[in-house]
């Protein structure tokens, strides 16, 4: 004589659930759990726009230390030309000179050439008719073009752009972006260490001084 065990209601439900779960693929469980988690996070603000930290504003003379360079914007000057350094703009244009003290905080020399060097790290913002890249970058003291910046030796550089006459004038306050770069090493076909992908890391608002034909750019320093 066989006695069937008494079938309770709970046991029946359990058995049915077991049978059902055997039919449902495991992947569905995982997917639904993830969906549940995402829905919950969305309910608590997971889809809101993330707050980007504001780019800090620096005063003229304040320094910004990035991954590769320490940059201190000193002043902005408008000048006709630097004939002694053979820097003469096209007729109808003038030169916008941003003086900045730049120190290499890395352990190798850093060039000042555009696209790979410090020429990318300073940019006046929103000036009509101005090329993005500077016309040249020179050492203020001796006029040498595109010097290499040696580690821990600060150099005062002139970042020079050609601007249409009237695009900027005396006492205008311009915004100057100070950029930083990302360190990259090695690569599949590339070799060595470098800094690339400049991004705005700070900005300075500086008044422009018009020195006309430029009798001693240095004398205009505050």
């Amino acid at each position, binding site marked *: 004589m066989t006695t069937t065990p008494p079938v309770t209601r709970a046991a029946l439900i359990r058995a049915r659930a077991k049978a059902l779960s055997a039919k449902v693929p495991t992947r569905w469980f995982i997917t639904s759990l993830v969906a549940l988690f995402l829905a919950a996070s969305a309910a608590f603000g997971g889809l809101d726009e993330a707050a980007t930290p504001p780019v800090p504003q620096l005063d003229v003379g304040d320094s910004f230390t990035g991954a590769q360079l320490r940059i201190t914007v000193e002043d902005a000057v408008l000048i006709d030309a630097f004939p002694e350094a053979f820097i003469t703009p096209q007729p109808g244009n003038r030169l916008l000179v941003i003086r900045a003290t730049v120190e290499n905080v890395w*352990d*190798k*020399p850093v060039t000042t050439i555009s696209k790979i060097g410090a020429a990318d790290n300073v940019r006046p913002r929103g000036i009509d008719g101005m090329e993005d890249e500077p016309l040249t970058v020179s*050492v203020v*003291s*001796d006029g*040498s073009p595109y*010097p*290499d910046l*040696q*580690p*821990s*030796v*600060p*150099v005062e550089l002139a970042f020079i752009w050609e601007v249409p006459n009237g695009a900027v004038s005396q006492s205008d306050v311009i915004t100057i972006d100070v950029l930083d770069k990302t360190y990259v090493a090695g690569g599949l076909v590339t*070799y060595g260490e470098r800094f690339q992908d400049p991004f705005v890391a700070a900005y300075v608002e500086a008044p422009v001084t018009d020195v006309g034909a430029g009798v001693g750019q240095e004398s205009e320093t505050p």
Partner: protein
Amino acid sequence: MTRMTALKRVANGVGLVVVLAIAWFVTQTTPTEEEWQAPIVVSGDLGETLTGRNIEAVVSEVRIAESVTASNGWAGPTSGVWVVVDTSVSSVVDDFGVSLGTAELVIDGITYSASERPDDGTIARAPLTTAIPLTGPLMFEIPRDLVESEAAASATIQLAVNSDPRADSLLAITVDLSALPLLPSVETDEPIWGAL
């Protein structure tokens, strides 16, 4: 029979350990990309003629100064100090497109390159000629406080043809900068063809 099997097992175990040890040794001693592409260093001292594959040089004098006046009249100020290295350099086997592209001063793992600010007053990046030495100064801008530091006692001047010395000769001259006086000013000679 069982004894043989036990011995065989022990032998297998020992064999496995030996293979693993060899594998570990191989992975530990395999040259990295940096190592197998590294420059071939030729070391020497001041006043010694060093010869590499396509570069021969002798560093005759090293001076440290607050300011430098080059032969072309250039006198660029620096916020650091100038290390002036007088050297004679020539290529050895080929001078087509060959220049003194690598002229560096390495102190405590930090690299300083020879300044090109003096323009014609320096031999940095100047083209080289086979068997006819180019003699002239190299000017290095280094931080002022570095001169008195302990690290300055073992500074290395590195010279090589072209800017990428990988898999080619690199002349390395060790100098003690801390033993040199800091001169107020230095005038450098005009770069010339011919030995000193």
